[in-house]
């Protein structure tokens, strides 16, 4: 499954091949940079965001960070498991510790994002 990344270290991948629901979270690299995550705040299902809006909050022992909507669309599900156990974000940021599932309103926005190789080069800068 193709994973795409933003410069703000969010990732987006399709839940199923060809499906219209996308899984959104923060990259493994972002989780490492944050350090031990102690608090996560997620939006409720049904809320809509424009690309770049403040969508979620993640706090580590060091600082609070905003998580921006990487694409425009509607929240269909929030991953409450990471609200209950924020440390999961450090364990499996790009797997079980996804943040939300979204239905994009403008799938073309995905094309402007980085693929895995481009993101790897971006964080190596």
């Amino acid at each position: 499954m193709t994973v795409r990344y933003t410069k703000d270290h969010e990732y987006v991948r399709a839940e199923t091949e060809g499906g219209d629901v996308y899984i959104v979270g923060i990259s493994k690299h972002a989780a490492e940079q944050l350090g031990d995550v102690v608090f996560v705040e997620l939006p409720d299902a049904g809320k809509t965001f424009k690309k770049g809006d403040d969508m979620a909050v993640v706090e580590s022992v060091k600082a609070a960070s905003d998580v921006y909507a990487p694409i425009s669309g509607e929240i269909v599900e929030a991953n409450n498991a990471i609200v209950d156990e924020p440390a999961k974000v450090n364990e499996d940021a790009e797997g079980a510790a996804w943040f939300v599932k979204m239905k994009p309103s403008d799938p073309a926005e995905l094309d402007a994002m980085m693929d895995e190789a481009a993101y790897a080069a971006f964080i190596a800068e």
Partner: protein
Amino acid sequence: MADALKQTPLNALHRALGAKMVEFAGYDMPVQYPMGVLKEHLHTREKAGLFDVSHMGQAFLKTTEAEPGGDGAHEAVAAAIETLVPGEIVKLKMGGLRYSVLLGEDGGILDDLMITRPAKDGLQGTLFLVVNAATKADDFALIGSALADRATLEIADDRALLALQGPAAAGVVDRLLPGAGEQTFMTMRPYEWNDAYLIVSRCGYTGEDGFEISVPGERAEEMAKALLADDAVEPIGLGARDSLRLEAGLCLYGHDLAPENTPVDGNIAFVIGKRRREEGGFPGAEKILKMRAEGPAQLRVGLLPEGRAPAREGAEIQSADGKTIGAVTSGGFGPTLGAPVAMGYVDAEYAASGTVVNLIVRGKPLPARVADMPFTPHRYYRG
């Protein structure tokens, strides 16, 4: 700018241990090691953590009004420093430490510091001072010039300072320095360790039992390695140092105490000695004693937010009916408590333990209550 940062004698060791380095008070310091802030914090509470606090300022204040040695010399140097601090220093016992504050003319707190009276007869007339890194240049300039007619200030920037904190600290230090385990909280003893002169104080900044060890800079790495050789000891960075002291309810100067605060509203009025309350004679004494008698307008309190969201420094504090009553000065997540903790200043009428307030976090009110500190019990060794 990176190459302009000052380094402690343990800089190479921090890097070898895989520390993530950050700038702190002009120094290149470890904020965390590969273990991470959360585990470093918990390890310190369970076993023992080694902290490099060599960036702090160490100095010896020596009387020029009396021959060194004996009570007369101590009284002279203690009376001199008492013109700048509100503590009882004259009656400090040999080998005793006192936590105090350096006061400005208006009674504002310029820094908090440790003042130690030497344990040996021949060294009476000297006080050992440990001050904060960010303020040390100003502190030493002030002390040196204010007391120029009475004492000389020798800055000991050739010495490093290591802290070993946690329930296993006493066993570790006692194996290296036999007898240190018997020292009680807030006492100091000198040691010769492989020909190095050590000043070993039973104190710390975590709420745990532990020691601060002043060691010649060129011997600091050897000392650190000797402590780290014990399985109970892990190196701990500034990140966990901050969460440990916050849970212990201890102030961070420049945040929880500042020049606009006095010991009274800072809720550390215990630093004003009984005799000093009666006699005054410290900067701002009139103002501070009046505030103590009448009650301060605001008071530093502990805060326990509901839920899991931490409130950070600067968050506004509101009363239950929406009135602004103060601000958070330190806040974060307390790993031992498993919950967020904070401290801040509130209007005195809201300072009672249990008072329900709101902390404004990301524009939203976060319910919290005023709570007694420390948040985690102090576990000092009192013999």
